[in-house]
C-alpha cells in the first residue's frame, strides 16, 4: 500500500467518526473527506478532474436553471432521505419546464458532530438517485458550521437542463377550458414523513413517492408538445400549487374531489390527524394543465409510464377574476380550496 493509500485507508476508518470543523477548513482534511466520501459515491469524469468547477458543452436551445435548498427533518424517512430527495427535487424542477436535465451541483453545509456514517448513507443515496436518473453531480462544495448552528446537514442543489424546440411551459399559461391532470396518488410523501415524527407516530405502509420525473415528462411532452403548465406539488401540496398557478394565470379552477387519487393509508392518516390531504407534500408527482382536446392523449401517455400509472383528469380551468380554486365534494356540495399561509398543523378539535 502506498503512503497515500494508507492515508486514505485511515480516513476510511474514521467513517465511524463525526464531522469536525477541520473538514470544512479547505485543507487536506477537506480533500480527504471529499475524495473518500463524496467522490467515492458520486464519482464521474467531471469530479475526477478535481477542479472547483465543471466545464462542458451543451447543445443549442433554451437553457433552464433551478436551485433548491433542502432543510428537511427527519433526514431519513420511509422511501428516501435528504440525499435522494435533493436529487429528485432539482431534477423535477428542471423537468417542470419540459426540459431535459443535464447536470447537477450539490453544496453541503454540515453540522459539527454529524455522524460520518450518516453522511455516507446520504451521499450514497444521492449517488444512486443521480445514477438511476442519468443526471450526474458535476461540482460541489462542503462547509462545516459549529455544533448547534445547523440541523445535521443542509444540501443545496442546482440543476440545468435544455428545453426542446416548440415547448413553452409556464405557470401563467393556463386558459379557461383547459383540463387539469395529476400523475398519481397525492399526499404519500408528507404522510410517510409525518408517520416517523416523534409525538405523532402511527403505523402505515406508506413510503415517500420521491422520484425523478424527467422520463415521465419527456413522454408527456412527446405526446402533447403544447402542454401549458407543469408543476410538482411539493411542500403545500396540490392545493397550494394550483392556487399559485391560478394566481399566475389569473384564472379559476374547478376540481372534482371524487376524481383525485389518494391511497387509503393517506386518507386514514389525514382523518386521524385532522389534516386536509390536498395540502400534504408530494415528491414524485406532478400536475399538468393542457387544452381540453389534448387531455385524453396526455392521460394515456402518463398512464403508460410507471410513474404515471394512477394519473387522472381531476378538473378544469375556468374564467374567474378572483382566481379561486374550488372543488365539488364527494358529497355533492361545493367548497373552496384556499391558499394556506403556512403548513397545515394536526388538530384535536
Amino acid at each position: 500500500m502506498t503512503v497515500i493509500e494508507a492515508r486514505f485507508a485511515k480516513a476510511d476508518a474514521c467513517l465511524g467518526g463525526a464531522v469536525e470543523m477541520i473538514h470544512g477548513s479547505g485543507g487536506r482534511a477537506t480533500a480527504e473527506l471529499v475524495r473518500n466520501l463524496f467522490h467515492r459515491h458520486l464519482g464521474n469524469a467531471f469530479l475526477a478532474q478535481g477542479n472547483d468547477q465543471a466545464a462542458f458543452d451543451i447543445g443549442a436551445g433554451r437553457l433552464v436553471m433551478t436551485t433548491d435548498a433542502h432543510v428537511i427533518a427527519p433526514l431519513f424517512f420511509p422511501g428516501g432521505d435528504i440525499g435522494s430527495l435533493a436529487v429528485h427535487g432539482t431534477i423535477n424542477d428542471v423537468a417542470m419546464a419540459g426540459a431535459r436535465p443535464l447536470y447537477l451541483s450539490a453544496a453541503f453545509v454540515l453540522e459539527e458532530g454529524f455522524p460520518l456514517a450518516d453522511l455516507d448513507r446520504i451521499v450514497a443515496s444521492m449517488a444512486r438517485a443521480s445514477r438511476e436518473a442519468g443526471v450526474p453531480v458535476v461540482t460541489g462544495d462542503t462547509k462545516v458550521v459549529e455544533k448547534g448552528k445547523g440541523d445535521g446537514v443542509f444540501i443545496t442543489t442546482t440543476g440545468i437542463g435544455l428545453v426542446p424546440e416548440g415547448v413553452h411551459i409556464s405557470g401563467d399559461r393556463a386558459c379557461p377550458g383547459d383540463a387539469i391532470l395529476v400523475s398519481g396518488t397525492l399526499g404519500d410523501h408528507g404522510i410517510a414523513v409525518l408517520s416517523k415524527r416523534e409525538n405523532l407516530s402511527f403505523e402505515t405502509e406508506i413510503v415517500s413517492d420521491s422520484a425523478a420525473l424527467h422520463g415521465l415528462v419527456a413522454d408527456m411532452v412527446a405526446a402533447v408538445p403544447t402542454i401549458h403548465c407543469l408543476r410538482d406539488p411539493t411542500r403545500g401540496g396540490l392545493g397550494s400549487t394550483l392556487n399559485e398557478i391560478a394566481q399566475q394565470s389569473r384564472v379559476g379552477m374547478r376540481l372534482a374531489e371524487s376524481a383525485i387519487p389518494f391511497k387509503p393509508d393517506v386518507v386514514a392518516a389525514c382523518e386521524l390527524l385532522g389534516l386536509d390531504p390536498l395540502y400534504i407534500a408530494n415528491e414524485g408527482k406532478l400536475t399538468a394543465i393542457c387544452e381540453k382536446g389534448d387531455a385524453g392523449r396526455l392521460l394515456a401517455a402518463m398512464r403508460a409510464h410507471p410513474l404515471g400509472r394512477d394519473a387522472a383528469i381531476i378538473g378544469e380551468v375556468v374564467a374567474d377574476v378572483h382566481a379561486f380554486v374550488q372543488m365539488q365534494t364527494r358529497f355533492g356540495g361545493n367548497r373552496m380550496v384556499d391558499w394556506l399561509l403556512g403548513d397545515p398543523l394536526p388538530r384535536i378539535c
Partner: protein
Amino acid sequence: MKYVDEFRDRQLAEGLAKAIRHEANTRRSYNVMEFCGGHTHAIFRYGVQDLMPKNVSYVHGPGCPVCVLPIGRIDHALELSEQHGVTLCSYGDMLRVPASKRRSLLKAKADGADIRMVYSIDDALKIARQNPSREVVFFAIGFETTTPPTAVAIRKAQAEGLKNFSVFCNHVLTPAALKAILGNAEESGSVSIDAFLGPSHVSSVIGSKPYEYFADKYKRPVVIAGFEPLDVMQATLMAIRQLNEGRHVVENQYVRVVTRDGNVKAQTLVAEVLELRSSFEWRGLGEVPSSALRIREAYADFDAEKRFGVTTKPSRDAKSCECPSILRGEKKPTDCKLFGTVCTPDNPIGSCMVSSEGACAAYWTYGRFRQPSSPLEAA
C-alpha cells in the same frame, strides 16, 4: 374506513334531503344551532347547507374550545414558556392562535422557547420522563371529550412520582356554555334558535342526561348528532319533526356511541382529579359561572398555575370584533365589518377566525364562494 364512509354516502344524503324538504313546513323557518365546531366543519366541508331547503338554516355556536379561550390564558402559557423556561407541550390547534401583541406559541418557538406539538398528553408525559431536568407543562384545552385523558395523565404522573410534570388546565364545560347562550337569547330576544344539535363526542363522555334540563327549561328540542354529514342531516330531520309536533325533548341520533349515562368511568376519573371553578372567562361570552375545571388540591403538585407564580391577566378583544354576537348565534360572519377585510385566517383578529372550527374560519374556507364579490377580493 368503517363507520365513517357509510355516513358520508351521497345517495343516502339525497334521500335525507328529500325527506327534509318534504317535512319542513314551508310556512315557517327552522333555525338550528349546531353547538359544536365539528358540526360546523362537517356542514361546510360537505356542503350540507346546499342540500337544505331555504327555510332550514344552521346557526353556528361556540363549541370550539380554541375560539372561546381568552387571550389572557394564552399570554399565561407564553409567560410560562418564555419567562420560566418550561418545555410547553401543546395540541397543534393552539400553536398559531394570536395572543396579546400579535404573539403566538409558534412565534415564541421561533424566538427560542421550547414549545412542542403533541398529539396526546401521554406524549408530554413521555417528554417529562425523558428529560428529568426540565420542567414540562402541558397546555390542556378542550371540552368534556378531551378532559378525561388529562385526568388519567395526572393520576399516572402522581403514581410514578414524576417531579417535573404539570398541567395548565383550561378545560371547559358544555352545559354551562349552552346555558350562557340560551340565557342571553332570552334576555336580548335578538336570536331565534329553534333547536339544538348536541355535540357528538362531548356526549359520548357526559351522556344525553345533562341536556334534559335545557330541553325542559327553555322548551327547545335538543338532538344529539353524530360527526358525519349524514348524522347532521338525520338529526336535523329529527329536530324538524319535533318542532312540527310541538315537542321539546332530548333525542339521541348518535346512538352508536352516545348513551344516556355516558362513560361513567371517565366521569369518575375526572371528578377525582379536577373540580369546578366558580367562574371562568369565555371569549365572547364574558364570565360564565361553573363553566370550567381546575386541578384539585390533592394534585396541586401537577397544577402549573400553582407551581409557577403566574397569574392570568385580563385582556380585551378588538373593538369592532363581532365574535361575541357570532358565538351566540346572533350575527353571521358576514355581518362583521372586520370579516374578510382586516380579519382573515392569515391575520385573525377574533376568536371565531382563529381556529379552523370557528364560524368565521369555516365560512371563509368553505363558504366564501357563495358571497357576491367584495371590492377587496377584486383588488
